[in-house]
């Protein structure tokens, strides 16, 4: 059973994940690949730790986040454990206005449907 300390830690983890996803999106828009790649590694690390603790569901609220980069990252990872909800979010992003987030959503869905998408 999850105690208050566990819940607080989980909340902090999701907050860190959302911040890293938003930073990755900002870096991609601004053409800063070093920052994007540092953010990528942090996202991968957080996702691995959530999986190890059996807490991946904590990412699901981020599917409704205001930042499309955060929604896109949460959906890309959620394809592993909540594919129906993830596909809904990625399909919406993939049909949105032109943007790096739209391209990433299109390519993520394409790779997943081909069975080529890998998870951290």
């Amino acid at each position, binding site marked *: 059973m999850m105690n208050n300390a566990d819940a607080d830690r989980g909340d902090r983890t999701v907050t860190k994940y959302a911040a890293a996803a938003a930073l990755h999106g900002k870096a991609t828009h601004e053409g800063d690949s070093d920052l994007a790649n540092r953010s990528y590694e942090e996202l*991968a690390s957080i996702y691995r730790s959530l999986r190890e603790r059996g807490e991946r569901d904590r990412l699901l609220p981020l599917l409704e986040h205001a930042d499309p980069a955060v929604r896109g990252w949460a959906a890309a990872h959620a394809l592993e454990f909540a594919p129906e909800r993830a596909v809904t979010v990625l399909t919406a992003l993939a049909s949105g206005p032109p943007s790096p987030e739209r391209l990433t959503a299109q390519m*993520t869905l394409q790779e997943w449907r081909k069975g080529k998408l890998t998870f951290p």
Partner: protein
Amino acid sequence: MHRRFREYDPATGQFTQEDPIGLAGGLNLYGFAKGDPVNFSDPFGLCPPKDNNVNDCPAESSRSFWDRLWSGPRYVEVNGERYPITAGAVPDVVPGGGVVRAFRSFGAFKRAMGAADEGMQWHHIVEQAGNVERFGAEAIHSARNLLQVPTAIHQRISAFYSSKQAFTGGQTVRMWLRNQSFSEQMQFGRDVLRNFGMIP
């Protein structure tokens, strides 16, 4: 194949009429751009420029002469989409022929087509890195694969290729593309341009 001033016979690689420039165009009055219609372009059948530099041609077949005469399209088509050619560049699409210029190096392309306009850079839709060896220089340094984009967008796209994204499995986009076919990379490159604001 009809070219503005002469008829070109693809079977022989020769024109069927004498070069109107006469001896100024070289001793072979029926030659076509040094016999290599892929790597050299002579849209009006007037001059095979040395090193692809139209400024080496006689004055009457110079770039400005071509521009004054040219009333055809100023774009290249890639999979049905049109990409504009900068004003002043030698036309790539010849009347009725659809020949697109291709070069053995990026330097040769720039010598022939000119430097990018101020604030712009030449952009390879299918990247150079690793692909010249796979697909050949002529496929990469072709007017089909190069267009001018604003420097800021070019830099953002270059950074995107250096970044890791959700779909690349822990690799950079460039590494993820490495084993894909030319047509897959072309499609992806067009999608990138569209999503970074270059193609409406």
